């Protein structure tokens, strides 16, 4: 427990000192909300419940932040320390791998939670964004999505050879994930085959899940998205646990 607390404390300090990562995790999402809010406003665009553009987009931005954390921030941090030999140095101490991962997950989750709170606060206070769903439901959907993409990140870290490959692989995955998420371009206008492929996109399901919880839709209507996101969590964790390596 002492090792976990000390390690989480040091990793949190390192995260705060990495100004680029802080920008991507905290400032960029909130900045996107401001940009989006200023550009499109939040006047009701659809007949349904008088919802505005930002009401629709807030949960999508939140899901995107989780995906970026998993695709870039988690593997960069882990592989950067592995490449430098820091993890190998940890390995010759009594520190358990599970303790290291628990501390790292705590810091990454904490960072995602702060980014999420900032994003919804800016949206709600700055532009009057409203969802209507229960706060507990939004938190549950956010926690599941964040955990799934973190697991995805640890699986990537376990499979990739070094930190230099992270931006390449991350971008190769991020572009189609974003394009086929329904948040950037409506899937309805895309050909049938593309829509089929999009059904396997975890980001699409995280957006659906978060948006559904934000709008207060019943969980039964979100079952397939919950299943896909939970599947990512299980598969990612299994790969990460099986392939984790200190060096």
């Amino acid at each position: 427990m002492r090792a976990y607390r000390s390690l989480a404390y040091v990793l949190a300090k390192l995260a705060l000192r990495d100004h680029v990562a802080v920008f991507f995790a905290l400032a960029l999402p909130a900045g996107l909300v401001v940009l989006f809010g200023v550009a499109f406003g939040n006047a009701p665009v659809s007949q349904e419940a008088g919802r505005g553009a930002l009401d629709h987009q807030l949960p999508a931005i939140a899901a995107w932040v989780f995906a970026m954390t998993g695709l870039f921030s988690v593997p960069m941090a882990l592989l950067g320390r592995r490449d430098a030999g820091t993890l190998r140095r940890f390995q010759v101490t009594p520190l358990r791998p599970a303790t290291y991962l628990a501390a790292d997950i705590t810091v990454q989750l904490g960072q995602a939670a702060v980014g999420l709170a900032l994003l919804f606060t800016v949206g709600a206070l700055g532009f009057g964004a409203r969802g209507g769903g229960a706060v507990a439901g939004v938190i549950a959907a956010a926690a599941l999505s964040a955990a799934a993409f973190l697991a995805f990140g640890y699986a990537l870290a376990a499979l990739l050879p070094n930190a230099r490959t992270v931006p390449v692989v991350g971008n190769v995955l991020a572009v189609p994930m974003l394009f086929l998420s329904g948040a950037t371009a409506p899937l309805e206008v895309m050909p049938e085959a593309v829509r089929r492929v999009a059904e396997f996109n975890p980001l699409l399901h995280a957006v659906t899940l978060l948006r559904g919880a934000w709008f207060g839709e019943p969980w039964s209507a979100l079952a397939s998205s919950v299943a896909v996101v939970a599947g990512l969590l299980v598969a990612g964790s299994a790969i990460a646990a099986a392939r984790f390596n200190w060096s």
Partner: protein
Amino acid sequence: MSRRLVHAIAPPTGSPRGEVFGIVGPNGAGKTTVLECMSGLRRPDAGPVRVLGLDPQADRYAVRERIGVQLQAAALPDALRVGEPVTLFAAFYPRTGDPMEALRRVGLEERRAARVAALSGGQCQRLFIALALVHEPEVVLLDELTTRLDPQARRDAWALVREIRERGATVILTTHFMEEAERLCDRVAIIDRGRVVALDSVGRLIASLGEERRVVFTYEDAIDGTSLRGLPGVVRVERPTLEDVFLARTGGAPSVGDAPAT
């Protein structure tokens, strides 16, 4: 491959004695492999390895609680401040002393608020020694501690190693500087292509080559070595090396002063 070596250097269980044990050999001889097997980083291809009577694979955490390791290739995040990893590593061990005491021992106490990135090569190695000492280990493994250090920093590191021995820990170090092994180690194993080719105290290893005495002259002018070499019984004639000059001009102890008596 290193079975005999590892057996020979394990101190008797329950009575760790202060000894500096050197492993020397050409690049690729297996020096680092031996230390990796001892710290449990590498599984030996064959043969038992025992450290403090324990198996570094099966009892890895029990072994790691009692050994301190300095690895050849390891770096800390640049953004850390010097005191932070020492406190952190102290939290990894069930029983530890004052982390700041470890920094004091290596002479880095005043730099504890500095960024790791701002340390010189020698200071960085001293920080890694502090990390290896923070839990008062019984066995300390040092892998090419002084390879990238300048001569003065190398001598500072030697003083630290002697201090670790005086406190009763066993130090096992690898080096490819014969001078370092000669001055620092009580016993030395010479390994070549994975085999121990010699293992004994430094004095006996040297004596095994035959009786030899060293006579040091100081001359104002350069002398002609060939006439000395022609005398009966003279094995070789040495001149001061550039390292002696470097140390004399940069404030290090002149190497003649602490040359071992032979």
